[in-house]
């Protein structure tokens, strides 16, 4: 056979198997866009699914299963979901606490829940303590409890319209004159509850048969499980006079009398989806999920969010930051080649790739602004991404205006990548587009004070990076490094302007929100520290107290000041800015500060010696 025949055979094989494979998989396109209220906003199911999936991210079993399939199984096939080994309990102390044996690291919800119930009193004791006093095992146990409870409530959210595990005995169906189809789910059985209760009242307790008792037990368990489950809020308030914008889970809506014809119709769409899922019927599933989405998009209160659901799903599936990283890495590679082979005209290519990367980053930030309706600096993670863009944009502007393009493009790309990984560290459990509801929940001030101060951080970072390069150039026999001093001075002045204005605006905000302009809050002190450091270094340089090397070393040290002001104050867990408190960051920050001090000290020392030697 020729090469072409082989190729044709392969193509025929895939064209035959392709549709078959597609038919066996449920199409999640419509389901992923269904609206749900979570974390104080309306988001698509895809986002909610990723949020939950991220809680179990340490589990390798989930790598091959996308979040949306994960949530669909939890909703519609809880029995199968509950026996899946999802929880990573590899920590030996945690295992011991829970009474688990063996080397097996993963356990299912059906194993974990009973064990946690046994440890109820122990958990209560932990909760009585201040979280700061918890030891590692207690923290892990609490995390496990929280995640297990969350998944349990997700699993039980739709229990009211899923098939009953214990069927109503056949003879009762005919004796009570209940239509057979109404004996299938809790909600349909509820229609005939009165007949069932009357039957039970008539029976002497000792004559009630075991199968009836089991059925009754099941009904009570469903009611207890779903009674307060209001985590999966898929239904908006239906009544026009209802001023609350709180959505509800199906059971809560029905059980509080907030339901009506519209929610009844929507819940029946969900019932249809659940049946199609359990029957593994792709065609029916597609139709049911599409009509559920069409129905949901007709909700009165969803008008403003409608387009954002599509946008958020696009944002999550496109992942623009991935392309940003690729382009920045490419830029870095081009710059390294350009450094090694200066004769090659690579600066334009580097500039193009850096612009492409920054465009993707800008698109991502704009998408976030539209989706979250907040300025892009609501969380520490977001502020890192914003600072990264400021750094790249500043380096791009400078690269376009100045001759030393390659060096500036390199700095931009390097900072872009460094901040990307820093952001990834802070969003360990994945970017779940969370909205902050603490003191920063004021769009106007986020849009002014926080943006200006974080832009200031970005400029400080790029200024310090240029200073680092100056020191490196001095050490590595480059006598032309002095041209970087005026550039650094200009950047330092710009940084000073932004950080000062940002700090003053922060004071005004504090005055409006808390009634005082300045309260010596750690974050305020941190911002002031940056301003004072810059003033000191710039004055030292202008007044001639600091020579070029001393000034550049001081500016290089600005990195530490910024890191302490930006991340360090959150570690103190005091004051009003504890929004970014993250355990374990202290080691990283300390290591960074020590490494920076050592690096700058060594570079400066070698440079001084070199200058003395040359003199």
């Amino acid at each position, binding site marked *: 056979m020729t090469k072409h025949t082989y190729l044709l055979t392969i193509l025929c094989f895939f064209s035959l198997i392709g549709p078959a494979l597609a038919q066996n998989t449920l199409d999640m396109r419509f389901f992923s866009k269904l609206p749900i209220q979570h974390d104080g906003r309306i988001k698509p199911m895809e986002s909610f699914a990723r949020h939950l999936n991220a809680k179990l991210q340490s589990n390798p079993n989930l790598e091959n299963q996308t979040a949306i399939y994960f949530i669909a199984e939890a909703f519609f096939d809880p029995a199968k979901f509950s026996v899946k080994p999802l929880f990573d309990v590899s920590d030996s102390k945690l295992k011991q606490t829970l009474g688990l044996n063996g080397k097996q690291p993963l356990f299912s919800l059906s194993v974990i829940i009973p064990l946690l119930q046994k440890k109820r009193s122990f958990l209560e004791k932990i909760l009585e303590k201040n979280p700061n006093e918890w030891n590692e095992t207690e923290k892990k146990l609490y995390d496990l409890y929280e995640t297990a409870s969350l998944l349990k409530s997700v699993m039980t959210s739709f229990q009211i319209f899923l098939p009953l595990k214990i069927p109503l005995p056949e003879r009762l169906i005919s004796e009570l004159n209940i239509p057979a189809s109404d004996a299938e789910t809790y909600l349909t059985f509820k*229609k005939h509850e009165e007949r069932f209760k009357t039957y039970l009242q008539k029976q002497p307790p000792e004559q009630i048969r075991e199968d009836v008792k089991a059925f009754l037990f099941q009904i009570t368990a469903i009611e207890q499980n779903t009674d307060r489950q209001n985590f999966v809020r898929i239904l908006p308030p239906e009544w*026009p*006079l209802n001023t609350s914008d709180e959505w509800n889970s199906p059971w809560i809506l029905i059980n509080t009398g907030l339901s009506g014809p519209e*929610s009844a119709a929507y819940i029946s769409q969900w019932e249809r989806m659940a049946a199609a899922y359990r029957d593994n019927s792709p065609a029916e599933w597609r139709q049911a999920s599409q009509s559920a989405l069409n129905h949901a998009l007709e909700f009165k209160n969803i008008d403003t969010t409608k387009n954002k659901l599509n946008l958020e799903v696009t944002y999550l599936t496109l992942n623009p930051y991935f392309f940003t990283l690729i382009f920045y890495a490419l830029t870095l590679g081009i710059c390294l080649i350009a450094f090694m082979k200066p004769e090659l005209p690579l600066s334009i290519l580097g500039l193009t790739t850096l612009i492409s990367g920054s465009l993707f980053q800008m698109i991502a930030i704009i998408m976030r602004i539209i989706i979250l309706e907040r300025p892009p600096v609501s969380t520490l993670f977001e502020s890192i991404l914003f600072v990264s863009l400021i750094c790249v944009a500043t380096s791009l502007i400078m690269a376009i205006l100045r001759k030393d393009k390659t060096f500036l493009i390199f700095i931009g790309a390097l900072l872009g990548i460094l901040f990307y990984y820093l952001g990834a560290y802070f969003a360990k459990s994945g970017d779940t587009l969370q909205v902050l509801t603490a003191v920063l929940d004021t769009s106007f001030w986020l849009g002014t004070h926080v943006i200006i101060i974080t832009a200031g951080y970005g400029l400080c970072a790029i200024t310090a990076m240029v200073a680092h390069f100056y020191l490196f150039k001095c050490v590595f026999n480059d006598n032309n490094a002095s041209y970087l001093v005026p550039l650094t001075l200009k950047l330092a002045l710009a940084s000073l302007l932004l950080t000062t204005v940002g700090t003053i605006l922060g004071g005004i905000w504090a*005055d409006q929100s808390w009634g005082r*302009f*300045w309260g010596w809050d750690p974050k305020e002190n941190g911002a002031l520290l940056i301003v004072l450091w810059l003033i000191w270094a710039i004055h030292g340089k202008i007044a001639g107290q600091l020579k070029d090397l001393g000034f550049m070393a001081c500016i290089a040290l600005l990195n530490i000041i910024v890191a302490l002001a930006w991340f360090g104050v959150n570690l103190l867990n005091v004051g009003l800015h504890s929004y970014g408190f993250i355990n374990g960051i202290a080691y990283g920050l300390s290591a960074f500060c020590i490494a920076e001090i050592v690096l700058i000290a060594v570079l400066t020392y070698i440079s001084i010696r070199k200058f003395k030697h040359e003199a």
Partner: protein
Amino acid sequence: MKLNLILLLLFTIVALGITTYLNHFSRPQILSVPQPTDQEITNFPPAPTFSFTTLDQKSYEITEFKGKIIILNFWASWCAPCVVEFPKLLELASQEPENIILIAISVDADKQNIDTFFNKMGADFQKNIHQKNVLIGWDPNKAISQDLFQTILYPETYIIGRDLTLRRKIVGADTDFSSEAFRKNLLKELH
């Protein structure tokens, strides 16, 4: 150098002065929290179209009552609050025979229970129940109450406007339907 020192000192004094001023005169203000107000709502959802059968086996379509205020009540003889509320609804219907139609749909499984309940009631009740604008429906399989209106807790009352739109839902039996205030408000709201 001397001039610099003076300037630095002046700057510090001015900065401290501004800070003290702002701290001293900008005390927290007590602002009232805006209360949600009843908004003018125009886009009421349409009532679902359905037909029901009365105790005397007559069938009606909800659309037949277009132009009147429909009070759709879901009740059961075994539900104590429903039993308390029922006479009040009848009284309201008797006060406005031209404007109001009361459709009281019972979800009792056994029709006999409804009859027993009616027979127990006093003379006023017996008179009011036979008014032309009172229709007692029976929905033993809850096809209307639960499948269509998703009512699980009883009583629940829907107020349907003359244009067959859903105007209000009243959960529980706390509303005094027979009161003058309720009747006037209803007529004013749904003129």
